[in-house]
């Protein structure tokens, strides 16, 4: 019985137990590391939205109004029709306030993209400003950011954020809505930004701290064509790209409906594997469906980052009350909402 005194090594059982304990510890640790990473990305993302809100407010200080949502061919100012830079939206006019003065100067001096009829379209421009990546417009939680495309082309910059066009669905006694309120490409869906909008902060009668200014979206197939997915600022604006709608909750399973979705198959529809609820999108043009809208979407757990009209950043849960959300999206609905 001298074995016990001269024992040097470990038995197999002891080794297996140690290995099992280590495995369990690693198993506990790994998800925690991933969560920390996502929390950091979410913090960066909310900081980006804060910067965007500051840019919009600085524009308001300079011009006494918020930037336009977008404009398209045929729009007029003081009865004079625009001929230059059709489809311009808030993103371009805010460039100087996002430390992109050089890109803005290039943009204003760009003479490319003019058609035979004299009209200039920004999606046909070829200057360097079109591919310039604006750092604060990219959400680090989205593996596809910084994006490209969503304006018919495959190279121009696509951001992760867009402004709020509004969206409220109960007109009287719970009847269903008209397409005009839903459609972000229509004249005024009720938010702080829409076609040819010039909203002043004082026009936001619900109070700027109760009204959504901007939120985020998901970049689908990066670098493919498509028109109008959220953030496709270089030409996709009239097809829905400039804004999101509060008609449905963030990360809804309801389809985004833009002109054409990136990566849509022959059925005109597409989803993103791994995105919350698949981030579904249907091509309104291919399917001949009326109305254009994007909903707020993100890869953050349980909701989206959003910034209110007063510049405060909030995390909006997917599970919040839809009516409250819709009332938050509109600037002067007069509806009192709790839980804002």
């Amino acid at each position, binding site marked *: 019985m001298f074995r016990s005194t001269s024992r040097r090594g470990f038995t197999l059982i002891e080794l297996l137990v140690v290995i099992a304990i280590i495995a369990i510890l690693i198993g506990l640790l790994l998800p925690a590391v991933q969560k920390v990473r996502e929390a950091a990305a979410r913090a960066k993302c909310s900081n980006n939205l804060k910067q965007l809100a500051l840019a919009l407010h600085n524009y308001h200080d300079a011009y006494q109004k918020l930037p336009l949502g977008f404009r398209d061919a045929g729009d007029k100012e003081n009865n004079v029709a625009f001929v230059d830079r059709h489809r311009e939206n808030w993103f371009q006019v805010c460039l100087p306030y996002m430390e992109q003065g050089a890109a803005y100067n290039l943009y204003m001096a760009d003479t490319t993209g003019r058609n035979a009829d004299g009209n200039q379209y920004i999606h046909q421009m070829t200057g360097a400003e079109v591919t310039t990546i604006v750092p604060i417009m990219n959400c680090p939680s989205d593996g596809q950011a910084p994006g490209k495309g969503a304006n*018919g082309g495959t190279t121009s910059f696509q951001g992760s954020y867009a402004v709020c066009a509004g969206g409220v669905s109960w007109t009287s006694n719970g009847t269903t809505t008209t397409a005009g309120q839903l459609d972000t490409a229509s004249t005024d869906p009720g938010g702080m930004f829409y076609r040819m909008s010039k909203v002043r902060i004082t026009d936001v009668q619900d109070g700027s701290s109760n009204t959504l200014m901007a939120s985020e979206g998901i970049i689908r197939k990066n670098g493919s064509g498509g028109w109008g997915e959220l953030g496709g600022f270089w030409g996709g604006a009239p097809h829905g790209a400039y804004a999101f709608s509060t008609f449905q909750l963030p990360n809804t*399973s309801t389809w985004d409906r833009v002109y054409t979705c990136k990566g849509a198959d022959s059925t005109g*529809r597409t989803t993103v594997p791994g995105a919350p609820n698949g981030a579904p999108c249907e091509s309104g043009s291919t399917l*001949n469906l009326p109305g254009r809208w994007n909903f707020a979407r993100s890869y953050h757990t349980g909701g989206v980052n959003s910034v209110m009209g007063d510049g405060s950043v909030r995390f909006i849960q997917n599970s919040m009350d*839809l009516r409250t959300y819709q009332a938050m999206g509109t600037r002067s609905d007069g509806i009192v909402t709790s839980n804002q």
Partner: protein
Amino acid sequence: MRVFCVRAAWVLVAAATVGCSGGGNTATVTGKVTFEGEPVKDGSITFKVGPAGKGFSATIKDGSYTAQVEPGDAVVEITASRPSGKFDTSNPGEKTPIGEMYIPKKYNTSSTLKETIKPGSNEKSFDLKK
């Protein structure tokens, strides 16, 4: 010892299953969609629940769909398109094929289809007419 191990394993499996099944109070809705007797090949179905119209969408493939919907009274919107051979040129420099939506408006943009979704599983089939 072996009996204990097996029992412990079951407890672990049960805990993992319970832990993952939390969240989401949606019901499953399945069914068939036909138009003029023919199954709808490629389409979309959306349930808009409650007075605010909370939307839940699913794809219709070869006449069948499976959707996750919150229980309640829902307005149902069904769309389906087929190629028309026409093109849209509203984007200068590009021609985009446009389709033809062949489901009447009374089933989508101004839908009159109403259904009540119960918790659990539901079977809702629709036979649409011109």
